């Protein structure tokens, strides 16, 4: 007595073929090729050697820790500044619409273009940033030439380019909070600061979850900005997993490169999955 559904599963088929062949299959295959010495034609099984190398070579280890530092820094800053900007840009400011546009536009611009532009602006002696600092008597640092600073400089540019998206998501989140909450809080005698912490922050939580998750995933996978600005240098000081993967690929170490991919995959899974579960559980409790 069952007739055919008006929503047939074969509608999935064309997308599924492309997605499986070009995304799922390589992802699964990576777990095998990561265990091999590989030149794209012959793969020799070498067990966990690639992973051992990853954990032994100092520059590969620093690539992993840099990935974490970069992701946490950019994600944290985007979350905090995104919320503050969103609150500012929904408070009925002068030229509010224009400001939103200005803050958001960098999101849409070529990452490479932004990277090259800021590379010039951050030039240690000629760059506009240090020239401006000199005017007020500060001796600007070598933003991209100082090994301890380079990664954070790139992270700042990432913030510049990406904070607009966080702001936009927060603005949408704030718009969904009923003004009645604020009116009730005012009648209860809450101060502006109290309203922010006790009304805004808890009620904008779904947006916070989105911003943190998106920017963390983006930060962990980040490649093009770093590549455009420092190519992982000076030395290996600003190398992250994604740039290591590319370098090993260029050098022809395909197995090692793929092992890097697998490590990146595991790293994202181990961070994002528990985080998502934790967010969801808090949601149920609340």
């Amino acid at each position: 007595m069952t007739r055919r559904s008006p929503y047939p599963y074969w509608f999935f088929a064309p997308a599924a073929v492309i997605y499986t062949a070009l995304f799922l299959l390589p992802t699964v295959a990576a777990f095998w090729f990561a265990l091999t010495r590989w030149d794209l034609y012959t793969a020799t099984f070498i067990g966990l050697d690639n992973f051992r190398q990853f954990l032994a070579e100092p520059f590969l280890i620093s690539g992993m820790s840099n990935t974490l530092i970069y992701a946490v820094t950019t994600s944290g800053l985007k979350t905090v500044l995104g919320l503050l900007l969103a609150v500012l840009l929904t408070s009925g400011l002068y030229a509010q619409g224009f400001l939103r546009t200005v803050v958001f536009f960098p999101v849409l611009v070529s990452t490479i273009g932004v990277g090259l532009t800021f590379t010039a602006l951050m030039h240690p002696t000629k760059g506009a940033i240090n020239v401006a600092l000199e005017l007020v008597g500060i001796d600007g640092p070598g933003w991209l030439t100082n090994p301890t600073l380079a990664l954070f400089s790139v992270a700042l540019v990432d913030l510049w380019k990406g904070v607009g998206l966080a702001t936009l998501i927060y603005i949408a989140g704030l718009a969904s909070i009923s003004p009645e909450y604020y009116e009730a809080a005012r009648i209860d005698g809450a101060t502006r600061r109290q309203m922010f912490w006790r009304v805004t922050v808890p009620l904008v939580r779904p947006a916070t979850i989105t911003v943190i998750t998106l920017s963390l995933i983006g930060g962990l996978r980040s490649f093009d900005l770093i590549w455009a600005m420092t190519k992982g240098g000076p030395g290996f000081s600003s190398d992250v997993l994604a740039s290591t993967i590319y370098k090993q690929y260029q050098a022809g170490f395909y197995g090692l490169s793929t092992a890097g991919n697998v490590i990146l995959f595991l790293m994202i899974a181990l961070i994002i999955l528990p985080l998502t579960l934790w967010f969801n559980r808090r949601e149920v409790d609340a």
Partner: protein
Amino acid sequence: MTRRQTWTGIAALAAATLIFIVPFVFIFLMAAKTKQDASRFSFAWPADWQLWQNFVEVIQTRNYMLLLAYFNSTVITVGAVTGLVILAALVGYVLQRRPGRMSNVVYGFILAGLMIPPAVVPTIWVLQGLGLFKTLHGMILIQIAYNLAFSVLLYRSFIGTIPRDLDEAAIIDGAKPLQIFWKVVLPLLKPVTVTNIVVQSLAVFNDFTNPLYYLPGKENVTVQLTLYNFQGQFLSQFNLLFMNILLVTIPPLIVFIFFNRQIVAGMTAGAVKG
């Protein structure tokens, strides 16, 4: 508007201008300078305006490579976005309309697609096996595969707002599944389709990493790759490099001016739901 708001507004305006606009002004100024002038990196008015000469010179560089790059990028963007719109709408439609174990599994794969970094070398291996490595259609298929998840989620949530009664009225009118989709549902998806087209066009056009891996070779160059390729060559010609950056920035700017609302809708989808 209170006095205080006005002053905070003006302060914010000044800060935002400094932080977010100055870099773009810098790009423009650099693109207008002479070679010597540009190499000083200074944030100064060009001594000699060379905007047009620089434009012509950048276009002509390496045998009109930038034009080829624009052509390639356009082909990839149009092809990928067309495919994305049709395939993602089909998936999002069935996913939303037919809940069940099958849809849960598909949904799981979609979420994984948002999270998992593509395994690059194995992908090259697959592309080579299919004869698609270093080809534009290979690149188109890659962009479809990588951006599918986002488009499907956009469509799925929008289709949730289209009443099922419409499908059922069409069923009673004698429509077959593909007719229901094509004649009733798809026309109603226009707003989210525009959003999809705009957001994904920007994503594909601006993509650097994937062409870098999957489209090596001069004849396959894309717009973003020209920046990277010229970077070495223009090391002494920053005016030309920045002219190139300017040219790469203009298409998103135009799209942004016309489709601001759709972009915002697409980028904030899911922000409220979580």
